[in-house]
Structures are given as C-alpha cells and as structure tokens.
C-alpha cells in the first residue's frame, strides 16, 4: 500500500509472557478497542513502527503529486485541469495531515523529509512508474486511488488516534479521486479509437503495479502479525488485494477494457476472481530503487528542497527579526 513494507523491530509476534506489566496493560487497552493518544504510554516498538508507517504514507502522498502533476499543464479541458489541480492539491494536503500525525509521536517533519531525500525512508512503489499518456491520469485515479481507499478505510479504525482521525479526512477525498479517475477512463473508453487504445494501454501498464501496492504476499510479510496485534493493520495484504480485484474486474468490464491477465477467472466455489501470479521480482526491484522513475521522482523532490532553501531561510530570518523587534519594543 502507501506503506508497503513496514518493518517492525522484531519479526516475531510478542506473546504475553514476553511483556512487562505496562505492556500487558497497553495490549489490554488495544484489545478493548481504546484509542492510543499521543500522551499515553506506548511500547517503543509500537511508536517506531507507527512512525515508519505514517511517514511512509506521508512520503507517498508527497511523491504521489509528481506522476499526475506531470499532466496538469497538458490536461485536455479547463474542467479536467481544474479537477486534476484539486486532486493533486488534496494529495499534498494528505501529506501534511500525515506528517502532523507522525509529529505527535515525537519526530519532526524536517527529519522525516531528510530521511525521504536521503533514500532511507521508503514511499509506495507505484509512484515510480511513468505517466505516459492522459489515460494514465485516469488509470491512477481509478486503480491507484481505488487501491488506496481499500487500504485506508480500515485504517480509520487504527489503534493510534491521530492516524485514525487523519484517515477519516483522507478517505473522504480519496473517493472523489477515484470517481474522477474512473470518469476519465469512461470518457476515453467511449471515445475515438485512439482514445480507447490509450485507455487500454494505461490499464495494461497500471494493473500489475496496482496489485503490488498491497505489499508482499502474506506468507512473505514477516511483520504483519505484530502490526495486526497492535491494531495498526486490520486486514492482510492478500485479503485486501483479493477485495480489490473483485471490485475492479466488473468496473473494467463496464468500461469494455480487458485486464491484462490471461489467468483471471471467476471462481464460483470461492465466490471471487482467481488471478495470475504477480512478478515479485519487479516489486522488490522497484522498492530497491530500480524502477523506471525512482531517480526522477527522488531527484525532483531533492531539487525542490534544495532550490527552495533560500525561501525557507528567508521566511525564518524574517520571523527571527520580528521576534527581536518585539523583544526590543
């Protein structure tokens, strides 16, 4: 997802016998569904894991501005341009709420930014794919925001209060994002031959990377069990991926587009779609920094940060002067 491989400090699920009294009381609270708030005691590992997850999520929103931001200047009508601007602006806003939520855990936004720019912190693999045509903007809204919703709706029930509340705001906006993406696809799929081809090509390129957004398969996600016990994660990666496939196949049929998976078939016994094998080499390769746009995306963020240094320092110098003036007065 937006946080695809959140490492917990230990890959083993802690049992009650490993826990001190304080930790047992903490686990009782979680089990009773009580939200954890910034001032409450929490195990260090819980705090660290949350910081990783929330900051990865925030970084994904920030880097996620770039692939679509690419097309704002080329949007085909004034209305599409306005909708896309509003959407990309929302993503930056999501980044902002999420950084604020992470700050309640005692990390600063500047430190998190430094981790992103140095490559220490991760962001979702999906944003390392290029947006080559206008249809990619549609496909991202439909599939990428669609997958994001699937993951973020349960996070509204996350055990950490500030994160859960940030997710409530974010989810409202994400459904608008998905609708606008689907609407772009609908118009293209019913348009000229070139537009239909553009829509199909976008689905062909974004389908598999979208499935990878849910993270590694359950048998390879060593950190999930602890995150689930902590109420940071509600559903397994494979469960969410399956839900996403089941939701999306009928939408693709409605559009008259073909999902690029020869093994995709309705399974009547299981009441879900069976789908083909995901190329996990590609996923790990993109995560490791070798995706088609990793260098461009991180490069763009590094450049924005360094080119903007004078601006940030200028504002700080001004407020320092004002403070001195007030003191002198």
């Amino acid at each position, binding site marked *: 997802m937006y946080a695809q491989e959140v490492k917990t400090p230990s890959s083993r699920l802690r049992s009650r016998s490993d826990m001190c009294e304080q930790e047992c009381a903490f686990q009782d609270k979680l089990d009773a569904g009580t939200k954890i708030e910034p001032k409450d005691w929490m195990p260090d590992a819980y705090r660290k894991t949350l910081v990783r997850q929330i900051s990865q999520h925030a970084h994904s929103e*920030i880097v996620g*501005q*770039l692939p679509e*931001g690419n097309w*704002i*200047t*080329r*949007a*085909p*009508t*004034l*209305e*599409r*341009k*306005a909708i896309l*601007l*509003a959407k*990309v*602006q929302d993503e*930056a*806003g999501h*980044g*902002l709420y999420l*950084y604020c939520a992470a700050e309640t855990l005692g990390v600063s936004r500047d430190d998190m930014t430094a981790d992103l720019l140095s490559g220490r912190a991760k962001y979702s693999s999906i944003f390392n794919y290029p947006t080559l045509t*206008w249809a990619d903007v549609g496909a991202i809204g439909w599939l990428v925001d669609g997958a994001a919703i699937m993951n973020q709706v349960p996070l509204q029930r996350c055990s950490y209060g500030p994160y859960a509340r940030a997710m409530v705001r974010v989810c409202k906006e994400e459904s608008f994002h998905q609708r606008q993406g689907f609407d*772009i696809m609908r*118009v293209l799929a019913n*348009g*000229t031959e*070139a*537009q239909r081809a553009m829509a199909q090509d976008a689905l062909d390129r974004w389908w598999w990377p979208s499935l990878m957004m849910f993270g590694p398969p359950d048998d390879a996600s060593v950190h999930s069990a602890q995150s689930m016990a902590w109420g940071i994660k509600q559903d397994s990666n494979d469960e969410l991926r399956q839900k996403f496939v089941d939701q999306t196949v009928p939408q693709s049929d409605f559009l008259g587009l073909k999902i690029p998976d020869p093994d995709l078939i309705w399974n009547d016994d299981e009441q879900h779609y069976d789908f083909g094998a995901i190329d996990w080499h590609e996923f790990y390769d993109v995560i490791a920094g070798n995706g088609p746009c990793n260098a461009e995306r991180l490069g*763009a963020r590094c*450049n*924005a*940060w360094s*080119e*903007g*240094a*004078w*601006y*940030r*320092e*200028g*504002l*700080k*110098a*001004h*407020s320092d*002067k004002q403070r001195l003036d007030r003191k002198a007065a």
Partner: protein
Amino acid sequence: MVLADPALVGVLGLRMGDNALILGQRLSEWCGHAPVLEEDIATANIALDLIGQASNWLKLAGEVEGGGRSADDLAFLRDAREFTNVLLVEQPDPDFAHTLMRQYLFDSWHAEMLDRLVDSTEARIAEVAAKSAKEAAYHRRRSADLIVRLGDGSEESHARMQAALDALYPFAGELDQPDDCDKALAAAAIAPDLGELAGEVASARTIVFGRAGLSVPTDVPVRSGGKSGLHSEALGYLLAEMQILQRSHPGAKW
C-alpha cells in the same frame, strides 16, 4: 477602429480570461516542486482559482462573439498571436522569487480591477467579476505578505526578490497602459479608466515594497504588446504544452 459595446465586452472578457488562464498555467507548473509543502498547496489553490476564473471569462467572450466557440475552444484552439494576455503573466520562472513577484505585480492590479468591474454598467461583466473579486483579494493579501517577508528576510531572499522585481517590473506597466479598446470601455463605463486605476495600484505597491525594503526601478521602459497579440517567445512553448491533446485529437471529447 472603434468597436461597438457588445464587441468591447468580448475583448474585455478575452483579456481578463487570457490573463487568468496563462498565469494559472504558469503556476500549475510548480505542482510538486515548490519550496515547502504549504507552497505546493497554496500555489495549486491559486492556480485552481485562476483556471476557474478563466473559464468564466472565456465563456462570456465566446457568447459575445456568437460564433459558438466554447471556453475550451478559446483556450485550446487559438494560436499565440490570438492570445491577449499581458506579457507579465507569461514570463517563465527562473526561480520561485520570480513566481511570487509576478504574482504580486499581477494580484495588486487584478484585485483592484475586479473591484471596479463589479460596478460595471455591463451586467455580464459585473457578474463574472463578482465571482472572482474575493479570490483575487485573497491572492493579493497572500502575495503581498510573502513579498514583505522575503524582501525583509535573509540577505539571499532579499537579493532574489530584488532581482525578480528588477526583471519583472518593466512588464507591469502594460496593465496600466490603455489602448483604444480600454479607452472605449472606460468611456462606456464598462471598465475603469486604467490610468486612474494605475495610480491606486502604484500607491499600494509603494507601501508593500517599502516594508519589504525593495527598491522599485525607476525610468524603465514598459514592455508591452500582449494585448494586441505580440507576445514573448515563451508563450508559444506554454501553448504547445497546454494545447497538445486538443490539437492532436481534433474533435475528440475528454
């Protein structure tokens, strides 16, 4: 050539619309690349306002023209020589200081202009202006505040803001220079007298630049031509990018 009132309304709609469209387009280039997250959000927000305003003005211009051209037709299917925005708004951004300075020079005029257009004798002009006036007043408040803080900030931010002012100030004069259409619009009380407006704008700017510690260039020649379609080379590239899909898929719906 003296245009009749209805055609004049179209000229004004087109000029206001083109200014908003081209500036909105320039601003939206920053999306995801601004100096801080808050600026990414604010810049997109202002671009969004301007694109919305452009749609309203261009729609009006199309209606007045009566040839069935929509706002999109006017935005995406005209060539550079037919655009009537002032040169200021099409100027590229070598750094964010230029972006902010261009914005303030425009906002300080735009907000004042819209305030007057709200009282236009032409109801359709007054109506579109009323929709935009509040947004423009907010844009001006915001850009004026940043001009002051960065002008009176660090040594580097001061130097960059001064360089941007020196580079862009010659283009601001075009907003104040009435041509025959502007004069006829003022005579019909459809639009304000630009010379008079210029005086008010200049005194507001003097206060802001004074607080920012920036010196306003004196005796600089005015760079103009945009209103009559004589643009800088930069506009051609901007339009090539903006119009690509409409131009390469004629007649397609999006």
